[in-house]
């Protein structure tokens, strides 16, 4: 065989091998995980956002970084035991140094003790139940878990009652002074209305205002005229309604007439557009537990949003997409710092946890974060929305931390 033929044959063989084999990416050396229910509409874009954060840090201090999403749903519903099973899988792989999630509070509360025992850090963009971090208030389970193990659960999502704080900040900006509050949840699983009101009242007083009346209503007829009369007599210019549509939020709005200037709502009402069609003359505002990064004018935030849209042009951006991105970036930054502290070696899970607990993390899409000893963010942020032409519109990001 001539040299030319031999070379041609060799070229064909090489070409064939190249065409037939898929290039295997080298296995990651450090992994971050997530634990979300695939059934939730918000989840795919959250997973995309975490993937983007990982893609922006393909090598972390020289280590290949990877992302493994877990699904804690079963038959179309999030299940605690599935989440616990996922945790076992994460614990079994020493490369997994932390996770973003869980998504739901009731899954989180069961996972915290297990993960705490493994010094495994969890960073949630969505779990808002107050009992996940402020254990002495409500739950011996979480308190017991942290008796001999560090606080391992951190969240950038503000705890539910912080909606009261956020709304009081906004009320202060609007120069609203006297407010009457009503709890009107009509579901046995919703609780904590008192805490919303307490946080609202505390912060309102810092803003120079006062809560002039509070009532709790489980009124199936949704007739709030008595409450409104008493509120007016007490001098209220605004009503703060903690509740949902089933509890009568839409009806109280219609019944307020021109006796009040403002109706301030929680996130139980901000998703219902039918509410807005009923005739009402009050200026209506509501809190939402997330921050819409796509509406930011900050060039840095805009660049993050643009990068996401470029990487995932067809992915719908949800309420928690960039909160998930920020959690992933916090976790990645903490791992990087833990590697540095470990003189370049792969850190332990506890070392990563300590970096999350003690670090400051600037430049997120939804804010800059550091954490309280409880695991809550020092300065969690929320959104304020208003009603205009029967539609909700975004007003601004607002600090949900309490004044002191």
């Amino acid at each position, binding site marked *: 065989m001539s040299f030319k033929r031999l070379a041609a044959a060799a070229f064909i063989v090489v070409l064939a091998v190249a065409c037939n084999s898929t290039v295997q990416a080298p296995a990651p050396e450090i992994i971050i995980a997530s634990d979300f229910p695939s*059934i*939730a509409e918000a989840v795919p874009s959250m997973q995309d956002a975490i993937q983007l954060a990982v893609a922006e840090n393909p090598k972390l201090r020289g280590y290949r970084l990877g992302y493994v999403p877990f699904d804690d749903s*079963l*038959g*179309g*519903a*999030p*299940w*605690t*035991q*599935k989440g*616990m*099973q996922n945790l076992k899988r994460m614990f079994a792989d020493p490369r997994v140094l932390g996770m973003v999630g869980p998504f*739901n*509070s*009731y899954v989180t*509360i*069961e996972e915290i003790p*297990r993960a705490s025992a493994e010094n495994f850090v969890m960073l949630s963009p969505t779990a808002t*139940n107050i*009992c996940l971090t402020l254990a002495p208030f409500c*739950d*011996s*389970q979480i308190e*017991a878990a942290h008796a001999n193990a560090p606080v391992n659960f951190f969240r950038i999502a503000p705890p539910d009652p912080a909606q009261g704080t956020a709304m009081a900040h906004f009320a202060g900006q609007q120069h609203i002074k006297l407010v009457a509050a009503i709890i009107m949840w009509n579901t*046995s*699983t919703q609780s904590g209305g008192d805490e919303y009101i307490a946080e609202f009242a505390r912060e309102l007083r810092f803003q120079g205002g006062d809560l002039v009346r509070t009532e709790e209503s489980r009124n199936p007829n949704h007739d709030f005229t008595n409450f409104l009369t008493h509120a007016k007599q007490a001098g209220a210019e605004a009503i703060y309604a903690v509740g949902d549509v089933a509890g009568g939020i839409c009806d109280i709005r219609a019944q307020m007439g021109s006796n009040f200037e403002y109706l301030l709502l929680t996130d139980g009402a901000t998703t219902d557009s039918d509410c807005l069609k009923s005739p009402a003359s009050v200026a209506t505002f509501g809190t939402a537990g997330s921050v819409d990064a796509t509406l930011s004018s900050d060039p840095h935030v805009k660049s993050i949003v643009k990068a996401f849209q470029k990487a995932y042009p067809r992915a719908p951006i949800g309420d928690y997409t960039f909160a998930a991105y920020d959690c992933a970036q916090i976790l990645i930054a903490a791992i990087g710092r833990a590697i540095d502290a470990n003189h370049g070696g792969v850190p332990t899970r506890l070392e990563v946890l300590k970096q999350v607990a003690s670090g400051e993390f600037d430049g997120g899409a939804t804010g800059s974060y550091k954490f309280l000893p409880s695991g809550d963010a020092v300065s969690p942020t929320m959104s304020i929305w208003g009603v205009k032409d029967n539609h909700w519109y975004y007003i601004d990001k607002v600090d949900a931390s309490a004044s002191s």
Partner: protein
Amino acid sequence: MSTSSNGGGSVRLSRRELEVARLVAEGLTNREIATRLFVSERTVDGHLEHVREKLSVNTRAQVATWVTRHADESPAAVAVPAPPAARPAALRRISKRWWVTASAVALVIVEAVVVLQVVVAPRGPLVITVAGVDPDPTGFPVFRYTGDGGLATHAAMALPSDIAIAPDGFYVADYRNQVIRFVDRTTRRIKTYAGAGGLPLESGKVAISVDLGFASSVAVDRQGRLYFLTDENQDLQVWTVDSGGLVQRVTQLAPSGNEPLGFFPDPVGGLAIASDGTIYIGDRAGNQIWKYVPGSDPRLFAGSGRYGYSGDSGPAASAMLDSPTGLALDEKRGYLYFADTGNNCIRRISLAGDVISRFAGTCQSFGDAGDGGRALDARLSIPFGVAVGGDGTVFIADTGNYRLREVEPGGIILALAGTGQGVFFGDGVAASQASFRAPTALEIDRVTGDLFVVDTVSQCVRALIGVSR
């Protein structure tokens, strides 16, 4: 629809007609069929009349014969084209060698069809829905509480978690609605039996007027009296409803850290009652099982309290469990079986010596494997429920795999029901074709031998007809 050939013609039986025909073949009377299918006797008469007309037969025996011959035919088998009536002249000239080749090919095709039949043909008992209707069977669970006074199959429940069968009907823990409902065996109508009121749960109060809290588990004693396990400020409590319809507290355990929170809390635990009145209580969050003999304090029966897996062949009280939920007694052979949910396995404890042992699953790994082999080597995933048949067969709700499995008395595990897809499908089809969104609690109806399955995310109770021997 089931299609089958009958003589020279094609027969199409509706799903319900096929169910009735199969139950006729099992030798059931129309009244028994009506009870099984939760329809009226008149409806069964109507279906059977249609079956006779369609099959052109007159007697029940002929219907049974037809079922034996045809009812299990798969669509694939029916679809095999019939040979032509006469060989065309041109074919007669084809060589003998061609015929040998063609015959071999045909044989391979026939064998493939047979294999396909074995693999994909409907197998197992019929699955029917006996209570609950999901308003959105494919979407995120929507919670409703409707249907009292009507047929149970038209009622809406919210994430039911357990079932207990009494002589006159069955009780369902309608967990998310925080009530217990009852379905009458004869009328098949549903009513709320306990809960739905706002009064504090205190002895002597009318069952319908109290707030049950999260009552996840139900059981009945020999007399058919209802017991339920609930959570009150993290204390596990067992209550009963007396013959006057009043709730009475039976016993209480120390707090174990259970924290029902939010949308879908895990079940509080499990409950089983022996014929002598002894009550076994699974404390999921406390990773323990307790034994309560009436008149004494509850005593620890299994579990050190720390989650994990250890202790097989030793004293049950020293073993580590992980989230024990479903319990089932086999008094005849002297065991308490329980779903060691977090360990992905089924374990059992000897009632005489309190010794714990692994029964199905490895307890150290999870997955979906092992059918046809030793149950001890199989892989399960988050099993929530277990039940024991009269012959010692153990039925398992392999929740994380969306399947039901059974372990024969010889220790071999087999697939019983479910395709492995976590969706609701198959009301009135064979068990191998049905699918479950989350099968959890199991209970056997000792009267009929039917196996009841709580399909939690589908928000209904389903039954596998005539499973238990």
